[in-house]
């Protein structure tokens, strides 16, 4: 029995008033949580999981999926408005979303993020619905060596986010890699760089460090400005009609489609996530764009690429969960427990025993994205008003949210100091013209790269041949070579242009 045999009963289970109410509640809560820096989607799902204990499987899953998908979009709101990604996977959105907002196009930036997120979400939901079991089998073949190649490919993004100097970008990325080493060694469990501080045994939380790196540094930066320099940004709000031109829609199409494909591919691979997907997509869009010079300065393509990819991950992470019982990321792992508490053990066998429930969840993901779009459309104007709040009121509110967010991650005052230290570190980096984004990239990819590299060598008894042992490895090697050639060509062109200008 397949999709068409179950579509009738699945629709009957899904289209109930109860499910629609839970979806909308989930979408709203997820969006608000993700929009506040520090309050991550996973934290939101953990907090609201007990609500689903007394619910049946479908309403419970719809509620959690609502939070999960809306969280993918919600993170972009603060990235665009206050240059601080609400969630780590909205960091790539920030690169162009905030400059767009500074240009007085806040509403347009939020709209682009919403449209791209919805497209990415529905695209991956359709992939889940029609190709789930087939692609899950392919992803199950990817091993430790292939994962390392994915990480190595991810490292090439550093070139794209380094700003003017590649060397400074690499230095910043190395700093990020070093920071990712803090905590228990993934292969031996012995502590590294913890200096006997028990709270560092688990490493540094990405959500907390993000607050310091991007939010607090802005506040410190504002403290340096004179009073009459503070409200430049707000003055441009009156021009913001939120209009996206026909040409911009055209330019968005390719990065959105590419982002959706990249997000779906990354999401299928367990252990990766929306952060990696949005960076891959952003970098690909930049490499393929006719206007790469606009990236980092308010490119609509940049926002569209990053947002479509991070939302496309949502549906794709459900593929290994529902077909193989393997959770693709932390949020989905929590959803696995919601299913198991209802007595459902996900896997292909469940498609035979409870096929209607499985297909109702898959169809429900499309519905979740539709409601996310509708809620987002009406909330966009409300969100956009945030930038019109005078700086003397907005700044203290941001500071309070930042510290409350940092505290809420582990209910620990220690994390407030961590956020502050990272804020000061980011300020010094700004003075030295070292970009902060590669630090984040190093932290996102560091642990995964190291673990897979060392584990691969352990499996192969130290032989590097393992990294050339499968066709998937060779595909990634080819991609890495192509990207590096592209980077070198780009740099040579830049140097040539600079000489001509001189």
């Amino acid at each position, binding site marked *: 029995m397949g999709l068409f045999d179950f579509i009738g009963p699945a629709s009957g289970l899904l289209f109930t008033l109860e499910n629609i109410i839970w979806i909308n509640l989930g979408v709203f809560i997820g969006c608000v949580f993700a929009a506040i820096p520090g309050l991550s989607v996973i934290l939101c799902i953990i907090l609201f999981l007990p609500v689903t204990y007394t619910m049946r499987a479908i309403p419970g899953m719809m509620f959690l999926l609502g939070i999960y998908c809306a969280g993918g979009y919600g993170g972009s709101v603060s990235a665009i408005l206050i240059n601080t990604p609400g969630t780590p996977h909205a960091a790539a959105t920030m690169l162009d979303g905030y400059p767009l907002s500074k240009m007085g196009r806040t509403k347009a930036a939020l709209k682009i993020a919403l449209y791209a997120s919805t497209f990415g979400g529905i695209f991956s939901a359709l992939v889940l619905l029609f190709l789930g079991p087939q692609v899950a089998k392919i992803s199950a073949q990817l091993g430790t060596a292939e994962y390392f190649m994915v990480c190595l490919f991810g490292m090439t993004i550093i070139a794209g986010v380094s700003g003017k100097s590649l060397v400074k970008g690499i230095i910043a990325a190395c700093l990020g890699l070093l920071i990712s080493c803090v905590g228990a060694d993934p292969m031996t469990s012995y502590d590294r760089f913890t200096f006997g501080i028990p709270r560092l045994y*688990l490493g540094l939380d990405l959500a907390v460090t993000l607050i310091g790196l991007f939010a607090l540094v802005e506040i410190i930066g504002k403290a340096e400005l004179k009073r009459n320099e503070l409200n430049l940004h707000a003055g441009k709000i009156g021009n913001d009609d939120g209009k996206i031109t026909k040409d911009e829609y055209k330019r968005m199409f390719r990065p959105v489609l590419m982002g959706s494909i990249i997000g779906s591919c990354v999401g299928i691979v367990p252990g990766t996530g929306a952060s990696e997907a949005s960076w891959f997509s952003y970098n690909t869009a930049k490499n393929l764009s006719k206007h790469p010079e606009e990236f980092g300065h308010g490119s609509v393509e940049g926002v569209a690429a990053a947002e479509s990819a991070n939302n496309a991950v949502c549906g794709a992470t459900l593929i290994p969960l529902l077909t*193989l019982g393997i959770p693709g990321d932390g949020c989905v792992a929590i959803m696995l*427990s919601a299913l198991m508490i209802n007595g459902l053990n996900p896997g292909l066998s469940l498609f035979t025993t409870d096929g209607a429930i499985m297909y109702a969840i898959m169809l429900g993901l499309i519905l979740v994205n539709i409601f996310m779009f509708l809620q987002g459309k009406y909330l966009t104007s409300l969100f956009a008003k945030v930038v019109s709040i005078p700086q003397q009121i907005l700044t203290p509110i941001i500071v309070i949210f930042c510290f409350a967010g940092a505290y809420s991650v*582990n209910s620990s005052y220690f994390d407030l100091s961590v956020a502050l230290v990272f804020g000061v570190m980011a300020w010094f980096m700004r003075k030295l013209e070292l970009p902060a984004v590669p630090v984040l990239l190093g932290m996102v990819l560091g642990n995964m790269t190291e673990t897979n590299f060392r584990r691969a060598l352990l499996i192969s008894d130290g032989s590097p041949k393992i990294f050339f042992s499968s066709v998937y490895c060779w595909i990634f090697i080819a991609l890495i070579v192509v990207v590096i050639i592209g980077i070198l060509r780009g740099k040579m062109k830049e140097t040539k242009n600079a000489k001509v200008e001189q």
Partner: protein
Amino acid sequence: MKKRIAALVTAGVLALSMLTGCGSKQESWKVTCPWAPSGVAAMVSQKAAAKSPDYSDNKITLVAEAVKGDAATVNTWVSSTKANDKELVFAGEGLFAITETLDPAKLQFSYDDFEFVENLYSSVFVLSADSSLNLKNLDDLEAYVKAGNPVSVAVNGATGSEAFLAAALFGSMGAGDQLKLTPYQSAAEAAQAVAKGETNFAVSHQSQILETYQQGGVDVVCAFDDKAIENGPFAGVEGVGSKGYPYFRNRCFVMARKGTDAAKVAELKELYDKILADDEMVEWLNDTMLLEVDTMTEDDVKAHIENVKSIVEQYKDIVAG
């Protein structure tokens, strides 16, 4: 006018929120579960918390919380509590037998800092093998090892219970030198490693290998228990204890802070015992989670810890080098 209304509404909400705490005799006990927020222990803790209002005669409600990280680190954070604080934590043999032996400096506390309440469940780990090896039981495994074949085992974490069970089994077969432990960051990843061909074997909870087993990727060779598994999809799988190999079950102890009133500890134990005797809970533990209800006394707990400690002492060189 608007400001006055806003001030009145705010004051009203504050007053109401203060009054909600008055007059209620119900106590909420926070139960902190370390390890993975979506792991076996967290799920059972959540289910138990959801059941607690049915059995506490409105006196105690359990509130489940999950904090990612190993028990030594997570419990350090909550051990800043005092006796009679309404907080419970989970701990297992990993904390009191493994970490205490391998890395005592990491422990900010000892067993004596806690009052034992109840054991939440017992899990019999299983050893699964790559199906292409065609190993169906312990005899096949012994022959495989004796022939000098490679023994690589995927485990969750470098020095967890799974690693020591593998070390104890293959070490006592005389294959300690052949054994290569490959740590993964979750039990699900470790279980998948065998199906991908990265390792020959994996040690995991039964529920975590079930889907891979049903899809034909692995064979389940033996269980880490004294006798064969009696129920569920792995019924009939031999226990390593039947051939004299060392083993232990994975357990999850619910602990209160030392010095908590004995009457309150007894009340909490009674609540957990009622929850763990609930028909729906038992069925869910057995059929979905493939775990066993295994209520214990403090003496049982101490005996369990001593057993694991002796295994850790004997095989720590294999695991930790």
